[in-house]
């Protein structure tokens, strides 16, 4: 499956990916200004830029083949789609127990504590695509689309053994 790969030599640490991700997963997926101004809860990104003085890179869910989070989820809310390979959380069933955070080796799951507690993670913009009916999201996730220096690449796996 296609995943997002980061190039740390090229990443500038501007965090635009975080901003666009938060917007895409807000109540106003297509409107950055409204997302940050109008939504009562702060829009949360599902991608994280790690940085220090010399390097930076963005990290989000790797959509693991043998996804530890889906096996550990106590409610069955976290599932891997058998066709697309996308790992996503059914937020209606999630109870915010954070067992998935306990087992995700990438630290790719956030806590959304603002309303009903839910685990918040990258869905490769698949839900955004469904909600907005905009195909552009499903073709290429917004973080990749909006990275000004092309530090994020959306491509088929280059890792041996990964599907």
């Amino acid at each position, binding site marked *: 499956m296609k995943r997002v790969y980061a*190039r740390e030599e090229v990443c500038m640490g501007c965090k635009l990916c975080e901003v666009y991700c938060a917007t895409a997963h807000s109540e106003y997926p297509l409107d950055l200004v409204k997302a940050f101004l109008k939504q009562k809860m702060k829009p949360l990104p599902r991608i994280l830029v*790690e940085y220090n003085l010399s390097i930076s*890179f963005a*990290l989000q869910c*790797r959509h693991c083949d043998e996804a530890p989070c889906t096996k*550990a989820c106590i409610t069955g809310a976290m599932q891997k789609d058998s066709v697309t390979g996308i790992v996503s959380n059914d937020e209606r069933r999630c109870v915010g127990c954070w067992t998935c*955070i*306990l087992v995700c*080796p990438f630290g790719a799951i956030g806590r959304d504590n603002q309303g009903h507690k839910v685990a918040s993670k990258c869905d490769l913009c698949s839900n955004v695509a469904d909600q907005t009916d905009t195909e552009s999201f499903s073709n290429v996730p917004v973080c990749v689309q909006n990275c000004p220096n092309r530090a994020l690449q959306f491509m088929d796996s*280059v890792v041996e053994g990964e599907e």
Partner: protein
Amino acid sequence: MDYVIIGNSAAGIGAVEGIRSVDRVGKIALFSREPYPAYSRPLISYYLSGKVAPETMYYRDPDFYLRLQVEASLGREVQALKLEDKTIELSTGDKVPFDRLLIATGGKPITPPIPGREYSGVSTFLTWDDAKDLGEELFPGIKVVVIGAGLIGLKATEALVKREATVTVAELSNRILSAILDEDSARIVQTHLEEQGVKFQLNNTVAEILGEEGKVTGVRLQNGEELECDRVILAIGVRPNLDLVRDTELKFNQGILVNSHMATSVDDVFAAGDVSEGYDKIYQENRVLPILPNAYKQGFTAGVNMAGGSSEFQGGFAMNAIGFFDLPMLTAGIIKPTTPGFQEYIRLDPGKQSYKKIVLRAGKLVGYIALNTVDRAGILTGLMDQEVDVTPFQEHLLKEDFGYIHFPKELRSQRLSLRK
């Protein structure tokens, strides 16, 4: 191929999915004493507090059994195993043959011989029915004594308090949650629970349950003190449910002994989940690991192997995600070493109710406590699981923002498959 699965919880469901990942046509017959489609056992306390509605208790979608072609006999108890004839016997007397059998009967509560435990109003807290029965009897101000300050006892306590009960917890150990927290972290959680009105009796337990006309009226503690109460919950612990196994030739210790394929000592018979004793890679020995992630994974592994595929359970270790009244904690592995050869490092921030501790052995991470500082703690679990030598970056492990940025570049690139 005829598969029989006894148990309809995390391990049993894992096995169904494991079998079907290899064999689409074999016949799967699944039996469960409990009458419900698979539900999430950890959610029973959420159900009791009212946070989770009945329809969201289920572990899989409503079409699960149909979609995976499982003949599920729910509410039907298995009474005996006739392994030499390759059949199981139901409590109705019916016999069911199998080619491959999975025992996934889970755990059962430890019920100590406390005088008075037969009174009505004394119960355990393990099944949805337990939670339903308890829920029906609650009223604001009801007095409840919980015996045992472990995970189950305190999850029940939290739900009871949310239902406006007055709860006293008696615990023989010197601290609450002694399996997953050390003294300092346990104190933070205890104070937090006390602020919600929970009372604790530590280094103490219930010596006798008092009653009148067959009904609980109170308890007498080990130190002689008497407390009035309307209900008693026994939550001392859970042990493997070996009822079906004792009269067979299956080898067991605390739980049913299994190898890395989840196969037991008898051909074609597998075991998984809370009933089994699988490999613990931190303790480096077989141990019962009664947690849901472990049950699912062991079940899945068993299923693949039952269906003729090949899958190895790489070993698990204790790990828990739990929280009380919005104070979350993640813990794993050895959190309080009692033998030499370990290094412990701690970062405490009492103002934030946060406490982080890591435990190292020979350069590797073997345990941690992350109390109210849980974000990205899974990276630590991953380092434990993959037995990474953390010496080159161990000074960063306790940091609140510990991440892949602190990994040596080589390791980071390999793990993240970063592109050039």
